[in-house]
């Protein structure tokens, strides 16, 4: 055994046999998982499992199985990588599987690319004269190391920026269709098997075999690329489905809120009305001027809802009442110009939801401004030329980020960013209208145009 070790150490065989694959796979895994939240004792877990992977590779290759079944080592190391992901990061087991598959696919593409570009293709395109000359270069250490590092770097970078980063930004939403997942796994196992034929069965550099090897490499690269794209595509799909579900839920919740709001405001109005009468009655019987004045103040206080804007549209009244109290508490100046003429176009809950979202957005933006004088919101609803226009402008201070053309709020759960806006867009489209947003010179403008159809 010692002799074996000594022979190995003196060549790249050491690297090739037991470090290369686990190391490449591990780097690929990192690219697809580094942003995930970590479990406790992360360092210990990941070190242990990394050593396990390398250890497994070493032990296996001390006594490699002859022939075809040697490829099983790749399968086992791949499974170990999934275990590594699941035990080191806080994620679901399915997520670990998909990350593992993605990493394996990435490693495989890089591997195929490297062999194609560094070995097969150059040899294929040389006549027998230059073959000798080329093989000297191809065998030189510097060339081997450079081509290896470069081709892997290129592929890993391209795939990271085009696919992995997206999953990092969007989050992992799972892949709903379990059948497709099954097929992807089969695809990958097939790829592993295909590669056995490339690696083991041929005298790699004879001309016919080179063509076979190039073909096999190309097929497996394409297969792996497919797997990656499918995973990415399905994740996108799941994200959009999730998004739609949340939007619908929001609207449903707002419906409940509307009912509660309406009841509350009506209740308070009735109470206030009663109180006013009682105070009036009491006031008549008091002759002391100071007491009368004090009572007048109390009476004024019961006008709490009366003093707020009243239009002919009940929904508008309710939402404006709600929001203007909130504004008053926060030193926000809210002004409204409302022509409720065509508002009946929009259903009560939808209107409540729309105006609620618009005002919530504006309020959230101005609340960030420390100077009370700048907390100004102006809302107007009007009709002209068969179009209903809802226009809201307000100051804003923080930096706005946009996703899918809509601004994203930075409060609350990151997975629920910007749902107010999404729900607004959804409702606009429901009424065949259009939502436009403009942010210019510290003022945020929001316009909703809805065609008036009779």
């Amino acid at each position, binding site marked *: 055994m010692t002799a074996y070790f000594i022979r190995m150490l003196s060549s790249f065989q050491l690297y090739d046999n037991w470090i290369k694959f686990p190391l490449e796979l591990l780097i690929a895994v990192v690219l697809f998982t580094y942003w995930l939240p970590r479990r406790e004792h992360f360092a210990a877990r990941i070190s242990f499992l990394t050593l396990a992977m390398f250890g497994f590779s070493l032990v296996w290759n001390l006594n490699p199985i002859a022939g075809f079944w040697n490829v099983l080592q790749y399968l086992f190391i791949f499974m170990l990588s999934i275990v590594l992901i699941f035990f080191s990061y806080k994620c679901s087991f399915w997520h670990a599987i998909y990350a593992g598959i993605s990493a394996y696919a990435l490693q495989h593409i890089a591997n195929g690319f490297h062999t194609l570009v560094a070995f097969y293709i150059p040899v294929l395109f040389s006549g027998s004269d230059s073959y000798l000359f080329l093989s000297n270069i191809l065998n030189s250490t510097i060339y081997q190391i450079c081509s290896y590092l470069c081709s892997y770097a290129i592929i890993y970078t391209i795939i990271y920026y085009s696919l992995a980063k997206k999953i990092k930004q969007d989050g992992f939403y799972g892949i709903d269709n379990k059948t497709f997942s099954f097929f992807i796994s089969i695809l990958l196992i097939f790829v592993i098997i295909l590669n056995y034929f490339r690696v083991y069965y041929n005298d790699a550099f004879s001309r016919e075999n080179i063509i076979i090897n190039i073909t096999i490499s190309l097929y497996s690269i394409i297969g792996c690329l497919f797997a990656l794209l499918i995973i990415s595509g399905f994740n996108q799909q799941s994200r959009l489905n999730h998004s739609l579900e949340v939007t619908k839920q929001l609207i449903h919740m707002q419906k409940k809120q509307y009912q509660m709001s309406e009841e509350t405001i009506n209740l308070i109005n009735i109470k206030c009305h009663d109180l006013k009468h009682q105070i009036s009655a009491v006031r008549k019987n008091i002759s002391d001027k100071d007491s009368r004045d004090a009572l007048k103040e109390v009476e004024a206080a019961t006008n709490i809802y009366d*003093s*707020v*804007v*009243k*239009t002919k549209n009940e929904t508008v009244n309710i939402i404006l009442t709600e929001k*203007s109290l909130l504004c008053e508490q926060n030193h926000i*100046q809210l*002004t*409204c*110009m*409302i*022509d409720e003429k065509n508002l009946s176009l929009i259903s009560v809950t939808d209107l409540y939801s729309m105006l609620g979202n618009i005002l919530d957005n504006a309020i959230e933006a101005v609340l960030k401004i420390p*100077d009370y*004088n*700048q907390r*100004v919101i*102006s809302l*107007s609803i*009007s*009709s*002209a*030329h*068969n*179009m209903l*226009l809802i*226009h809201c*402008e307000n*100051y804003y201070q923080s930096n706005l980020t946009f996703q899918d*053309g809509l601004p994203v709020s930075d409060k609350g759960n990151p997975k629920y960013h910007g749902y107010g806006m999404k729900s607004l867009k959804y409702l606009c489209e429901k009424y*065949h209208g*259009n939502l*436009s947003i*403009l942010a210019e010179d510290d*003022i945020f403008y929001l*316009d*909703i*145009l809805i*065609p008036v159809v009779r």
Partner: protein
Amino acid sequence: MYQVAIVEDNPQDAEVLTQMLKEFEKQNQVSFHWTFYPNSDDFLLHYKKEFDLIFMDIEMPGLNGMDAATEMRKKDTDVTLVFITNMAQYALRGYSVNAVDYILKPLNFYSFSMKLKKALRNIRHHGQELITLKTSDGLFRISPSDIYYVEVKGHYLTYYTNRGDFISRATMTDAENQLPQNLFLRCNKCYLVNASYITSVNSSCLILNDTEISISRTRKDSFFQSYAQYLGGTV
């Protein structure tokens, strides 16, 4: 230079308003010429259609601002009107006199600035000068409000107007520069439409004088943005 009328009975408030106008001029590179009226009677007495913008205080002795505005509108439907008030309620009726917005007292510059910008967008719709069209039959002067839309075909533009169609050798860019930008909207590569003649719009096309014109996908967002601004301005 915008002609501004300030109808305000309280001299301190009038002074504050003036200061804010001066500050706005500096920050936004515009200039105003203002005239004071301490009450609405003086204002209405010799009213002439000479103003671009009117700041009208609502709470005034005698005829209040809202009623004064109603009287004024009988003589002038074009001028841009902004109310100044202590109370929010009155402003809801602002749309009946075509007011652009209202400003709450005590005046603060941020609120003033935001609403004045809105008012100015409105003003730019009115007071259009005649433009000149160069056709093979000679020169024609026409008001932009008489033009329904402009179509480009090759090197020629066709102006469809209420005085007939005119063909001029020019580019669409020439037309866009010549015509008021907030009134004329580019809805697709070949058409420039006058927003005031649009009778209905949906997400893919608009109808103007019984002609259907499509809205291209690339211009859709900017078209709706501009159209919303136009509609916001005219009310």
